[in-house]
């Protein structure tokens, strides 16, 4: 019963195991609800800005992590490429750590995200926290 409540809280996003419709479950009383695809597209566009600056990267990432969801790999790929444009390897590694932390008890999310991001990680030369050994305290 507790797990049902937990999943319902995070039914908003990618990992919606609830049996209701797949549309984002925000409870607006009026106005058009943004679909998952629109949400993803908006964030990918945000991070894909060619001349994104460090503040925008930080603000975007901190805001995204504040949402009740784990970002789609394509959003994360755009964020990692933004780190590359800003010559900021540390932030790229931090983003991966944040994704793992954001998954919480759902341990299958992080390996999936890494699997999807593997081509980008190899291309840009970004190590995972596990490869560096900083995933252990």
């Amino acid at each position, binding site marked *: 019963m507790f797990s049902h409540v937990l999943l319902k809280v995070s039914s908003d996003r990618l990992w919606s195991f609830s049996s209701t419709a797949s549309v984002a479950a925000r409870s607006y009383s009026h106005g058009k609800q943004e679909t998952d695809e629109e949400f993803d597209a908006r964030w990918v566009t945000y991070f894909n800005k060619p001349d994104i600056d460090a503040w925008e990267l930080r603000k975007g990432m901190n805001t995204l*992590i*504040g949402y009740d969801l784990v970002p789609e790999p394509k959003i994360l790929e755009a964020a990692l490429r933004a780190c590359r444009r800003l010559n900021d390897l*540390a932030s790229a590694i931090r*983003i991966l*750590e944040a994704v*793992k932390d954001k998954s919480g008890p759902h341990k299958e999310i992080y390996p999936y995200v890494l699997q999807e991001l593997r081509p980008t990680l190899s291309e840009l030369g970004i*190590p995972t*926290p596990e490869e560096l050994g*900083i995933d252990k*305290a």
Partner: protein
Amino acid sequence: FVSHNALPTYFLFASFTDCFSPSSKRQTEVRGVAKVEDYTLPAYFDRRESPLPDIKFVQQLSPDQKSLKEKEKGSWAALSKEEKIALYRISFKESFAEMDKGTGEWKSVVAGIFFFIGFTGLVVLWQRNYVYGDVPHTFDPEYKQKEVQRMLDMRINPVEGFSAKWDYENNAWKK
């Protein structure tokens, strides 16, 4: 433009230009700059909910770190594992694993609880010896014996309780 206060328009314009006319002295003087306090500047925080803090952890870079930062502008695949870790540690103080780990403070708390319970026990013992006087004579074993005999004579709880356990024939407790 409608003048609501019925003044002729040219009066209003006269007051406007007075405000914006150039003058050799600033409208507001600069009397001095306040000292910038540390707490007003962006601070570094390791937080799960805000993974990228406002500032890097290391603000003054050593020459080694500076050259590493230059190398970061090139291909990241060319960096060694130690260099990547060094870059991470320049920007961040603790990794997620380090910031999330427990402190073991609970062991100190439990130890403190046991210690103070034990100390209280000592206080109670001392109190029994030095504060309280003797118990009344009604606690003496002989008196208690007489009490029990009286209760049996009165047949206290004869069905299931006290006297029910006494064997009146043999003058002993029932086995």
